[in-house]
């Protein structure tokens, strides 16, 4: 490489709409060769959507992307790949059963001259050179399955390098790494700077971004709030820019009290590879928030409480009685409801009408004297929920696939209300729901607690946790590491900073 070519990527006024949601609104963003550019923001701020447009997975509605001086319009990821824009997704994308060399040269193998045969010797040499240059002590013939998570990530980066990557987009590369592994990976990324590659780092970990990036762009609600020089800013400033409530403050209308016998008590719950001794108490009328990094164990905790995962040890008490929950059926009988974050995949029967969805769990209540399901009862029950939850639909016979995300979520809520559940576990209840409907869903959750339900809210949305919850627990690697109480130390800043801090 004689003279270095100019490597730069400029996005101007990028806009992207999804039905009912403006995901990106006039985004200006740039990244140049030799730079690590951090992209931070809360869930749903638009980080991933922006990068998906850059890498061709989505198509923009407005604006332009200019790559090294010429405007590009990728209609799929292959076209972006051809321009050497390579994205490494959160989940590692390696072939576990193949060795390091095979993984690095996947789909761009070196060939023997004028033959279709691969040149193993040359690939081995190239691999050894790479590993040496970056001081990685990995055997090229090692099965990748045996490598650690950070090594796998580095391997993906090496693959991108051998593909001649100009821009490397890393989506939360450290989310499943330990602190030591993250440090190693970040060091490795810094080594790449003199390669004239533009690196875009999507992250929620602000400390990490400050540590490794040259510039940081903060997104909120699909807009760029600012681009900062990493050397001239602070964690506090970045957090302040990230937050900025998009919810109306009137989520908690009317007061709430809680107490009495805990609706749910968990003592030293352990689940293999997930939870390492979790204790918690949830009272009727309380909203207990749990948050943490990806893979910190929130989902697994919910699964264990709902009988979908065997616990290794520990005790679960419901209303003071020790219980064993072996299946969702048992959990439901005990008065537990679980609204997973995957509404469409796990919560709804999309092609069924609303009244079938609402009554499917509490179907026994719908029987007439002959023991047959009474459509009249199904209708009456559904009608009540549609009215009280303000589900917007032309009719209760409408199939739920035709409803908006917010109304679908309300149907799921109605389904569990019909069971008279006393403990309600919600996981990211506003994921993919537009801002207006979000407030409504949050009010609904507040109302559930007011009605005496114990609500366990697993969420990654800090603003909704800080506004709704009485108590927020920070889960990290299967343990509860911090606890915040309303009226004491529960603030958005405190949660965000605790949730993203690397504990050692």
């Amino acid at each position, binding site marked *: 490489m004689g003279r270095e070519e100019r490597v730069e990527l400029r996005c101007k006024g990028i806009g992207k709409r999804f039905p009912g949601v403006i995901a990106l609104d006039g985004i200006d963003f740039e990244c140049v060769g030799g730079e690590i550019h951090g992209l931070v923001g809360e869930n749903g701020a638009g980080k991933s959507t922006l990068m998906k447009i850059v890498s061709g997975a989505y198509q923009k509605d407005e604006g332009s992307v200019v790559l090294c001086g010429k405007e590009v319009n990728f209609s799929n990821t292959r076209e972006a790949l051809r321009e050497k824009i390579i994205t490494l997704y959160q989940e590692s994308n390696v072939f576990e059963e193949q060795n390091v060399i095979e993984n690095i040269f996947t789909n761009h193998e070196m060939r023997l001259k004028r033959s279709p045969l691969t040149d193993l010797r040359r690939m081995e040499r190239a691999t050894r050179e790479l590993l040496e240059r970056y001081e990685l002590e990995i055997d090229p013939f090692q099965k990748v399955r045996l490598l650690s998570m950070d090594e796998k990530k580095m391997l993906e980066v090496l693959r991108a390098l051998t593909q001649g990557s100009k821009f490397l987009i890393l989506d939360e590369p450290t989310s499943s790494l330990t602190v030591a592994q993250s440090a190693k990976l970040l060091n490795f990324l810094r080594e790449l700077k003199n390669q004239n590659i533009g690196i875009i780092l999507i992250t929620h970990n602000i400390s990490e971004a400050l540590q490794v990036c040259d510039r940081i762009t903060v997104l909120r609600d699909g807009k760029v709030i600012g681009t900062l020089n990493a050397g001239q800013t602070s964690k506090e400033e970045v957090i302040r820019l990230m937050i900025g409530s998009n919810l109306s403050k009137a989520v908690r209308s009317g007061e709430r009290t809680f107490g009495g016998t805990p609706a749910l008590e968990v003592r030293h719950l352990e689940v293999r590879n997930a939870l390492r001794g979790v204790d918690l108490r949830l009272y009727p009328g309380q909203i207990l928030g749990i948050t943490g990094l990806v893979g910190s164990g929130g989902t697994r905790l919910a699964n264990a409480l709902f009988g979908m995962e065997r616990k290794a040890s520990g005790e679960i008490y419901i209303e003071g009685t020790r219980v064993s929950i072996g299946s969702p059926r048992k959990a439901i009988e005990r008065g537990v409801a679980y609204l997973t974050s995957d509404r469409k995949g796990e919560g709804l029967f999309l092609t069924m009408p609303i009244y079938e969805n609402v009554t499917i769990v509490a179907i026994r209540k719908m029987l007439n004297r002959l023991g047959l399901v009474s459509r009249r009862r199904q209708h009456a029950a559904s009608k009540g929920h549609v009215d009280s939850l303000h589900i917007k639909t032309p009719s209760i016979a409408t199939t739920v696939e035709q409803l*908006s995300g917010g109304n679908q979520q309300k149907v799921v809520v109605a389904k569990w209300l019909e069971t008279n559940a006393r403990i309600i576990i919600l996981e990211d209840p506003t994921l993919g*729901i537009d801002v207006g409907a979000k407030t409504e869903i949050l009010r609904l959750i507040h109302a559930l607690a007011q009605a005496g339900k114990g609500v366990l809210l697993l969420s*990654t949305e800090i603003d909704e946790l800080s506004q709704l919850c009485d108590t927020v627990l920070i889960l990290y690697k299967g343990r509860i590491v911090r606890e915040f109480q309303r009226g004491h130390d529960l603030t958005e800043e405190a949660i965000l900073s605790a949730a993203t801090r690397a504990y050692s």
Partner: protein
Amino acid sequence: MLGAKAMPPKEHALSTINGSRTVTWMQTSFNVIQALTVFVVMFVAMTLLFPTFHTYLNLTNLLKQQVPNLIVAIGMTFILISAEIDISVGGTMVLASVLTAKTMQAGGIYLGVLVGLAAGAGAGLVNGFLVAKGRIPSFIATLGMMYMTRSIAYVVTRGFSVPVSTDFQKLFAANFHDIPYVVFFVILLYVIAFIVLTRTIFGKQVYATGINIKAAELCGIPVVAVKMKCFVITGVLAGVAGIILVSRIGAVEPNLGTGFEFSVISAVVIGGTSLFGGVGNVFQSVLGVFIISLIKNGLNLGHVNLFWQDFVTGAVIVVAVLIDTWRKRIAEVLSLG
């Protein structure tokens, strides 16, 4: 959890509230209308084309021939709605009929019937166990059972034909104006099946399991038991069909009813029950069975070369599945146009 994914709602353009209610209506009724139209058109066409078609004899014959298909189609409808498939029904039917005939020779009619039913239930239970508990894809599990049941039928008969007493043949021969009483029994089965599917908890669970098994599980629906029951119901019905078959033809051979399973599956799919689960009902399957039988009857009456008949049946199956696969798209286009 934090910073997981900004998930854009993936609704397609149609899923706005206003104006698209017709899509649902079209999706469900499209199937019925489609099957009913095909049936009526074929019926009228054949009446016009073949003078012998509209004779009472031809029509009652058609009805009699379709009794086993009609019975097994009920079970197949349950199975397809639960998003599984059973290609062992032909084998199970033959095994049941062979065991019935064999047992009758020694132990009398009642024991024979009982053994036939037990064979059907047993085969269904094994299928259900392999699929629901063992989590083997149902196509493969029931493919294995198709071979095993037929093999046992050969072993038991050593390949020879087994006759039954004339007494037992009266079961099917008994009739009302040349319509066997068995036909009324079939109608009763359909009424029961309809009520079970649409009005009982079990029926609701079958649909829910077929539409979204993960959601069904999270709703506390015992999906393993639901699938198991569907297979056992189908097995028992295949047993019933086998017993009635023996009574009708007076003797059974183990090579009877080859291709029976596919003729039943295609009938159910032509009726509008989806191969992908969650959609369908038993009355549509009746239409499907008659459409297939009309096609065969038409080819016979039209003296079409016997060797071409399978070709036509095959083509009809492919078209039916094609429509099933593209059903949603077609319904959307229809409702927009």
